[in-house]
């Protein structure tokens, strides 16, 4: 291989009239580098989003939710809880009454919204979902000062306190201390039986729930489990048990254990333990799909760059035809010739891949400044020395070479332009239209090193494959015809 390297490296740095080809080599390297850099950045962002969502989601969601098929209420829930808590991996459980109800605030005379009501025991719920961490206001659903005040001033029956999702509260236009009316059920009119009267319950808003999970903040209200049971006339019954585990990743196995451990009669219904993964499957599978698509698209970009390499090599082969003939007369075999050109293409691929990895990681680093974006000057101070280094290195490598200045100028403009773009315009999830759904305001970055290595290998492989045809073409030139080529 020594001989092939000797010739190939000289051709890559060749300093005679083929400046055109040298510019194309630079462009090829740039193409590969851009492909690799963007895929590393894009996947780091997607990983970051996924990880951020998972963290946020797991912070205020149970790992396993145990219910019955049909979501019916069941008795003896204390016994079921004991059975579930007997499982090793279970840390805590929280009995819950889950329901939906129509609400209207006291200042309104029409139904404003239909919301989910989660009847909880705050102490237990804290252990499972960290409930109180996300509440702005009181979490004492039975004895808050708001409740006492309301009971003092008003002549209506106050059933209890409610903690409302922050966005839901904003939508309904209620503040702490306001009364929210629930329509619990409809009752027949005692005299006119064809008429239905709503059975109302009054709750005082005592706090706002702000978890940054849109599902809860937009749609949920939390009341005390006793109040919920009273509301639906289901004393001492619940319809769900929320479970927290030592490790969220164990959810699937533990869910099966719970289903086995908790015994129900046929009449009561089939137990159904759902994991957080199942509950959020659409979201996470969408993210995974997005990642796969990203890789496919970026692979296409690298493929384009590889075609670039192939055409560069084909041109080089054409330009070097005479030299190939000469080398053949000197006794190089087809294999030698093939290697010379494969090395050239592979070096371009390798340089591009390495440059792209460096660029991608640098961009990840730049973007990981959370919301504090580096200033123009900081970015320039970072990039100018790097660029000068590259310039000096290239000047040394390519003495007496004219055309490269143009190529470098273009490269320089691209780098500066992109750096300024990054500096001036923070990429936020709002730009991507994601903040509404995920409520994350900064772009999370998480570099998956395994993937970085994978994309490096993939990029290099694609570039290497691109060298095969031109190299084969060079190797199959007939020595005599090649020598006479003008």
């Amino acid at each position, binding site marked *: 291989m*020594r*001989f092939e390297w*000797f010739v190939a490296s*000289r*051709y890559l740095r*060749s*300093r*005679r009239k083929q400046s055109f080809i040298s510019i194309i080599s630079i462009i090829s390297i740039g193409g590969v580098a851009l492909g690799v850099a963007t895929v590393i950045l894009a996947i780091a962002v997607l990983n970051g989003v996924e990880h951020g969502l998972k963290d946020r989601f797991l912070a205020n969601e149970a790992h396993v939710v145990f219910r019955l098929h049909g979501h019916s209420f069941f008795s003896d829930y204390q016994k079921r809880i004991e059975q579930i808590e007997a499982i090793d991996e279970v840390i805590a459980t929280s009995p819950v009454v889950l329901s939906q109800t129509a609400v209207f605030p006291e200042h309104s005379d029409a139904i404003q919204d239909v919301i989910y009501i989660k009847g909880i025991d705050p102490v237990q719920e804290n252990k499972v979902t960290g409930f109180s961490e996300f509440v702005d206001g009181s979490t004492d659903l039975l004895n808050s000062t708001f409740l006492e005040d309301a009971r003092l001033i008003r002549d209506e029956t106050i059933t209890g306190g409610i903690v409302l999702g922050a966005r839901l509260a904003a939508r309904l236009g209620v503040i702490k201390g306001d009364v929210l009316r629930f329509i619990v059920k409809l009752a027949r009119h005692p005299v006119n039986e064809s008429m239905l009267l709503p059975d109302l319950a009054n709750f005082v808003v005592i706090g706002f729930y702000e978890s940054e999970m849109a599902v809860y903040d937009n749609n949920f209200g939390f009341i005390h489990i006793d109040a919920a049971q009273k509301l639906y006339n289901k004393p001492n019954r619940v319809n769900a048990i929320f479970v927290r585990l030592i490790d969220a990743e164990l959810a699937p196995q533990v869910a099966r254990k719970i289903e086995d451990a908790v015994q129900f009669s046929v009449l009561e219904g089939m137990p159904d333990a759902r994991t957080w993964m199942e509950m959020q499957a659409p979201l996470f599978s969408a993210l995974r799909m997005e990642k796969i698509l990203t890789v496919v698209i970026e692979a296409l970009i690298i493929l384009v760059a590889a075609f670039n390499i192939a055409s560069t090599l084909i041109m080089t082969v054409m330009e070097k035809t*005479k*030299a190939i*003939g*000469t*080398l*053949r*007369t*000197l*006794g*190089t*075999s*087809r*294999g*030698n010739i093939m290697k010379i050109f494969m090395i050239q293409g592979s070096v371009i691929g390798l340089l591009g891949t390495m440059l792209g990895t460096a660029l991608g990681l640098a961009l990840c680093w730049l973007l990981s400044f959370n919301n504090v974006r580096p200033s123009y000057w900081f970015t320039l101070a970072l990039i100018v020395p790097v660029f000068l280094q590259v310039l000096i290195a290239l000047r040394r490598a390519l003495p007496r070479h004219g055309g490269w200045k143009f190529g470098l100028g273009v490269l320089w403009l691209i780098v500066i332009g992109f750096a300024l773009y990054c500096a001036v315009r923070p990429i936020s999830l709002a730009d991507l239209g994601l903040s509404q759904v995920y409520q994350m305001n900064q772009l999370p970055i998480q570099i998956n090193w395994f993937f970085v290595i994978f994309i490096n290998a993939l990029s290099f492989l694609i570039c290497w494959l691109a060298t095969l045809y031109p190299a084969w073409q060079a190797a199959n030139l*007939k*020595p*005599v015809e090649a*020598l006479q080529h003008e």
Partner: protein
Amino acid sequence: MPNSAETIIRVVDLHKSYYDGEAELPVLQGINLEIYMSELLAIVGASGVGKSTLLHLIGTLDRPTTGSVLYDEHDIFTLPDTELARFRNKEIGFVFQFHHLLPEFTALENVAMGALITTSNDKTVYKEAEALLDYVGLSERLSHFPSQLSGGERQRVAIARSLINKPKIVLADEPTGNLDRRSSEAVLELLWDLNSKSGQTFVIVTHNQELTQQVDRVVQLVDGNISSG
């Protein structure tokens, strides 16, 4: 040439045709030729008669349509490409009308190239290349690129290059065809000197009358055949 001399190359019933679409263009039509060890053989003939083609076939750069070229009684074209390349590398040196130096490499590197293909000992090779350049009178030009050399100098580099692996045979195709008179003389002197010193076999395709008077033997190619030899 005396019959006692050892035959190094035997060309047997060599045919070579080129194809232009359907039309067959016969160039060599049954060449029989023996080339002896250490002789200086000139091949002459009108242009287009196939002198260069014959030289290429002897040099294994091309394969014949039919017939064979025997080196030490071995049919060289039965070898696979890799071994043929190795054979060419070790046993044959080429000098062309146009120097065919590689423009990206210095004179020294151009001369060393043939040996670098197979060796791992660069130092020795460069030393030998230096000695060869010194021998052809270019010891001052080692690190010059071909574009920085004159025509005669380039041709002398090309001759030095053909000798790096100490080949048994040097094939020269119009080695002075592109040179002025003075450069030609210098190149030819070099060839005679080499032949007398190293005993290498030289096969020279030429138009140069002066040259044909100074060789051991002249064969003339007429209509794809040898007319005298």
